[in-house]
């Protein structure tokens, strides 16, 4: 199994690691039994994601996809963030080994969970916003 240069770069130098105090949305997905947990924090200003941070327990691909997913939504509108797909995360990383595709799915879910949490805090039902 070989990781792309980009995956290794995002693993070695992960962007946006950390937490946000008083975050507007927090999402956590995965479980320790499966070996991956991702926790994402977002700060929203005027409908735009002004800051995003993550903490991840997992393999190299889990950390790299978390890092890339946060980069892809930073500065975007909340609605745009909801459109983020695991495919976009994978493409931005120049691909993932087949056994690691689930990491990109988890990263997409973590972003969606954080945005859903933001909407719930705003009193909006996030279900209707998420395209299934």
């Amino acid at each position, binding site marked *: 199994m070989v990781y792309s240069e980009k995956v290794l770069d995002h693993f070695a130098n*992960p962007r946006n690691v950390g937490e946000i105090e008083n975050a507007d949305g927090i999402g956590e997905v995965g479980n320790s039994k499966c070996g*991956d947990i991702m926790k994402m924090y977002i700060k929203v200003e005027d409908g735009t994601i002004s800051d995003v941070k993550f903490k991840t327990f997992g393999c*190299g691909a889990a950390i790299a996809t978390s890092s890339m997913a946060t980069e892809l939504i930073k500065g975007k509108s909340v609605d745009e963030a909801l459109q983020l797909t695991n495919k976009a995360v994978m493409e931005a990383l120049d691909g993932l080994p087949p056994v690691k595709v689930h990491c990109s799915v988890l990263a997409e879910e973590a972003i969606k969970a954080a945005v859903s949490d933001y909407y719930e805090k705003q009193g909006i039902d996030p279900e209707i916003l998420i395209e299934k």
Partner: protein
Amino acid sequence: MREIYADNSATTKLSPAVLEKMLPYLTEVYGNPSSIYRVGGRAKEALEAARERIAKNLGAARPGEIYFTSGGSESDNWAIKGVARALKKKGKNHIITSKFEHHAVLHTCESLEKEGFEITYLDVYENGIVRPADVAAAIRDTTALVSVMYANNEIGTIQPIAEIGAVCRERGVFFHTDAVQAAGYVKIDVTAQNIDLLSMTAHKLHGPKGIGLLYVRRGVPIETLIHGGAQERGKRAGTENVAGVVGLDAALQIAVDGMEARNKKLAALRDRLIDSLLQIERSRINGDRVSRLPNNVNMCFEGIEGESLLLKLDFNGISASSGSACTSGSLDPSHVLLAIGLPHEIAHGSMRLSFSEETTEEDIDYIARVVPEVVTYLRNMSPLWEKIKKEEEL
């Protein structure tokens, strides 16, 4: 940057002395040992001289009990399928093995389940050691074979092979052991230890890849696995890998000759590293500390995942491995660590280091410095570690 190869249980570097012995058999003495002319005859002589020395080094009564194979996996497959199928005709349909065998044994047993065999998987307890009394209790009238590894490939625990051998001999059941990791580190004597079949490979002992052996005690019924020519007394077809056999013999001889001194040195390095790394909070050593290969360190660090640890170690010049199946394409953690009772979330954070004669004290000190740094770095970005710390505070 310092480069440390710490994955000698995966494979080893070919010893220059072994290579030197092999070279003539790749160049001048290229003949087929089965042929009539001199260049074939010389190859045959080398093959049989190696067989004789290897038999002595393993305590075999006769050189003819040594069969050369392509390596550990073939030997395990042949031993188990060969004996099981030979005895099925006599109404035997039961095999006893342990929960933490190498997949070459476990998957072979699973394949025999499809042929109607019943398999008993013995517990290995928290210390990673099979109990001979459990073997005795599991033996039935229909038991064809007991297969228990000599030393575990992940956690390095050495099994009570002589005791298990004695139980099997007393009950009239054949006993196979996978000694792939143990050979060269423990004193093997198949006769004294009542071993009926033993698998071994060269590349874990600074020998070449692609060559191994199966010891089969005379009189043990075994069906052929590789059909074809009459090589290996008609039991294992294929033109002999003469250079490989010469390399296997040379590697085993070097390993046996220097065993005591090397084991002493390696055990000291091992213990020094384990003691140092156990100072990391929420770390643990996997498997018995005493009945353990002198070159094996296997530890878990809570709150982090093994693959990211290994990648970080690689960035720091340390080649290590993990039992983590992340690397083998499954989401399940190591079956060995689960067998010794670790919960999934802890088993995910494992690291195996396996050393060789070339490992130095400076290497050990470097590893002892780097691992805690990497563990701290990964824990700082781990939401699982955050949870563990919060629960501690409560």
